[in-house]
C-alpha cells in the first residue's frame, strides 16, 4: 500500500512548476479565454441535461465571472474575486452527472476554439478538484 502511494506521489511531483503559467498563453491569453467562456456558456444553455440549472441565473454576470476565474485558473494576471465554488453552487444540489455534462460541454467548446487536447487536459486538471465543492448531491 505504501509503495503504491509513494509511486503515485513521485509521479505527481514530476510535473514541473514552471509549466503552470504557460497554460494561460497556450489557451490564447485573455482573448482566447473570453472566446472559450462565451462558447462554453452557449453550450451549457443549449444542453438539455443542464440548461435548467441556469434558468434563474444572470447569464451576463456568469460570463464575466467565468472570464475572470478561467484567467486566474490558467495562471493569467487576474484575481478571481467571486464567491467560493461551494457558496455559489450549494443551492443548486448538483450531481456528478451535472458536473460531467458541463465538463463535456467545456471540452466541446475547447475543441471549437482549437485548443489542443493536451492543453485542454492541463486546464481541466485544475478545474477537476472543484467537483468536491460544486457537487453536493
Amino acid at each position, binding site marked *: 500500500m505504501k509503495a503504491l502511494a509513494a509511486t503515485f506521489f513521485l509521479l505527481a511531483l514530476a510535473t514541473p512548476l514552471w509549466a503552470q503559467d504557460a497554460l494561460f498563453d497556450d489557451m490564447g491569453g485573455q482573448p482566447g479565454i473570453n472566446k472559450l467562456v462565451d462558447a462554453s456558456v452557449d453550450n451549457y444553455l443549449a444542453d438539455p441535461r443542464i440548461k435548467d440549472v441556469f434558468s*434563474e441565473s*444572470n447569464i451576463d454576470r456568469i460570463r464575466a465571472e467565468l472570464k475572470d476565474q478561467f484567467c486566474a485558473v490558467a495562471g493569467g494576471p487576474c484575481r478571481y474575486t467571486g*464567491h467560493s465554488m461551494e457558496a455559489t453552487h450549494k443551492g443548486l444540489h448538483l450531481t456528478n452527472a451535472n458536473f460531467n455534462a458541463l465538463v463535456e460541454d467545456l471540452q466541446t467548446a475547447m475543441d471549437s476554439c482549437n485548443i489542443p487536447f493536451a492543453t485542454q487536459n492541463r486546464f481541466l486538471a485544475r478545474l477537476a478538484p472543484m467537483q468536491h465543492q460544486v457537487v453536493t448531491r
Partner: protein
Amino acid sequence: MKKLLPLFLLVPAAAFAADEAHTVVQKGRAFRPAEVNINRGESLTFTNDDEFIHQIYVQAPGFAFDSDERNPGQDITETFTAPGTFEVRCHIHPKMKLVVHVK
C-alpha cells in the same frame, strides 16, 4: 425571532405605524411575499432564508439603491423614502422581483 415572522406577515401592512420595519423573506430564489404595501419612510428588512447569496437593488427615476451581497442567514434593511411603486430585484437572480407600493 424567526418563529414570529410567519405571524408578522399575516398582519395587514396598513396596521403598522411609520418607521416600523417590515420583513420580506428571500427563499427559493424568490421574495415572499412578492408584493407589499408600506408607507413612505418605512423600512423593509430582507432576510436571506435561501441557499443562495442574494443582493437587492431598485433602479427607478425617483428612488434607487444597490445593496451589498448577503449570505444565507444574513439580513439587510432598506428605507423607502419616496412614494410610488418600485420593483426590488437581485443582480444575481434576474427573475426575482418584489413589488413595493409606497404611499
